[in-house]
């Protein structure tokens, strides 16, 4: 853990230095010259827009010295030849010293001019920019911080997965909802009633659904050992076929291929409330003893959980939809909150490799917490002392965690 704190601090500093160097705005000076003709903007520089797929050029200039004397804005002109005809491609407001031309061909060379315009519609033209071409880059330096922090977290997860392979025993705290899974399945068996599993209402392009399906696989393996009926209505066709495959394999690997039925998993409808209507119907008619709601949910969460409650089922929910968590917490017996949902399949698998990844997640939390503590302290020192030293440090931490769309 210590090594991580150190490397984190080191990487922070590295990132900060890199970030600090990428973004420097030209200082703007203005001088007063009265009643002379409108002075043009100067030092027009055109450069390829960095960190993109090509097709864009940034034009920068030094403001017209007459900025304070009624300049209303700048017009940007472009041509493909220094002597050819220049055409207007856009405007920038007074006081702004850059313009992004997002409509260029990478194969052409461009020349730019910037016009200053004042209240009385006088114009004055700058010198020509040097020739420029747009091009695509292989790395977006604006995302360097994302790469550093993402790299740290992913590195931690991968490290602990690899580490766990060597068989080091990990301490893991208990998660009540998962402890209850076996009991809930056993209860359904005793009562001779089915188990209902709802893998959320989103498709396989949501990571919560994948978490739901993996948990279904684990749960189904346990269920397979009992003679209990499993019912998995799905609201997406792809989820249906994935769930079918998963449940079938779970039964096979539990040695109960004979107990598997094609009817366990079935498609209902893609429509959110149509799906809920059908699930409610299943609940009151089949009276499952246990209901799992694991995946992505929206407004339907409470409709299902309340109906499940009215039939006296044990209910175990898990979702990473912050808006629906309160309803599950209120109406279900156990709720896997956010991160616990994604940890659940690792817990249930009991495999060291999977459990190792949880330790990697904890490193992510340490990174988050140390960043918050450091950032908040720097901000506080800055607020109290007003010292620009703390100000710039705080600014740097901010930059490390900001996603600047260039």
């Amino acid at each position, binding site marked *: 853990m210590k090594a991580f704190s150190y490397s984190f601090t080191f990487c922070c500093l590295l990132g900060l230095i890199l970030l600090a160097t990428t973004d420097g705005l030209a200082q703007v000076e203005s001088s007063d010259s009265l009643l002379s003709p409108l002075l043009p903007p100067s030092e027009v520089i055109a450069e390829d827009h960095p960190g993109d797929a090509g097709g864009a050029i940034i034009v920068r200039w030094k403001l017209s010295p007459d900025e304070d004397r009624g300049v209303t804005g700048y017009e940007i002109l472009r041509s493909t030849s220094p002597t050819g005809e220049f055409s207007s491609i856009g405007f920038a407001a007074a006081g702004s010293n850059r313009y992004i031309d997002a409509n260029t061909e990478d194969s052409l060379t461009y020349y730019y001019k910037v016009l200053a315009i004042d209240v009385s519609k006088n114009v004055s033209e700058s010198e020509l920019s040097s020739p420029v071409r747009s091009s695509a880059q292989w790395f977006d330096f604006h995302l360097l911080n994302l790469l550093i922090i993402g790299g740290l977290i992913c590195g931690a997860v991968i490290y602990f997965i690899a580490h766990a392979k060597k068989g080091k025993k990990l301490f893991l705290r208990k998660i009540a909802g998962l402890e209850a899974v076996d009991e809930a399945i056993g209860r359904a068996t005793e009562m001779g009633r089915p188990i209902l599993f709802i893998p959320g209402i989103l498709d396989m392009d949501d990571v919560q659904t994948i978490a739901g399906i993996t948990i279904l696989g684990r749960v189904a393996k346990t269920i397979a050992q009992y003679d209990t009926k499993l019912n998995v209505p799905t609201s997406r066709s792809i989820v249906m076929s994935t769930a079918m495959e998963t449940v079938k394999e779970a039964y096979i690997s539990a040695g109960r291929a004979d107990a598997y039925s094609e009817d366990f998993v079935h498609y209902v409808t893609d429509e959110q409330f149509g799906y809920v209507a059908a699930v409610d119907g299943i609940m009151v008619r089949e009276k499952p003893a246990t209901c799992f709601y694991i995946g992505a949910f929206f407004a339907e969460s409470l409709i299902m959980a309340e109906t499940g409650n009215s039939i006296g089922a044990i209910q175990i929910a898990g979702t990473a939809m912050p808006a629906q968590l309160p309803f599950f917490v209120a109406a279900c017996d156990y709720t896997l909150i956010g991160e616990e949902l994604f940890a659940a399949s690792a817990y249930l698998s009991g495999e060291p490799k999977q459990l190792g990844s949880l330790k990697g997640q904890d490193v992510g939390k340490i990174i988050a917490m140390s960043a918050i503590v450091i950032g908040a302290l720097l901000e506080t020192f800055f*607020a109290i002392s007003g010292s620009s030293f703390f100000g710039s440090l705080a600014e740097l931490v901010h930059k490390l*965690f900001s996603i600047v769309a260039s």
Partner: protein
Amino acid sequence: MRKDLVWLFAGILFFGLLYLLNWGVKAISTDLLVWIGAFLSLAIFSFLYQDNPFYKFAEHLFVGVSAAYWMCMGFWNTLVPNLIAKLHPPIVKGVLPAIAEKPPEYWYIIPAALGIMFLMRLSPKAPWISRWALAFIVGTTTGLNLVRYLRSDFLGQIKSTLIPVIVVENGSLSVGGSFSNIVIVLGVLCGLIYFFFSKEHKGIFGVASRVGIYILMITFGASFGYTVMARISLLVGRMRFLLGDWMGLLQ
């Protein structure tokens, strides 16, 4: 004859009769479509009492109609313009004349192939090929989501928590502002501690994790309480339809 069906038919008949007999009555709606909407609404509401033939009818109708609805939407809004029209534009000349002129984009053969692979589940010989398509889907989902969540939920949320715990306003200390910021910073920290998996929640750590639970409980209670009103407004809307549009009891 089955009892539930008798009830169902009797109910529908009764509703139909009401509809036919209301012609003279001034206020009540004469629009058959409004009557259908009202009947279906009441059928769903009846579930609040208990399961019954009317709810069963409405539920099964809902499932059939809505499943087909989304399939038609998928066919006309995705398959035709985004696949067929891309591969062979002239085919859609009859339905989407605007697109039919464009040159074909052959790389759309990839999703078509993946789609067909997925359907191989039905094939008796090589159902395992469908797993390739599934592997593609899962790879896409995990790859995209990893970065997406890292960006907006991890970096974004941490960034908004980088706030001073002592707030100075116009040169003087703001007690309220400072208190709020301290609660936010400590709240986030304790909340995160609650989620720690690999460390026993004992001692100071245990205390922080308890505070974390309380913060989460406040969050859940507050969000729940806040949503109640919005949920009731949905019912008000339905009641206005039933009492107003249908029965004409509202002015």
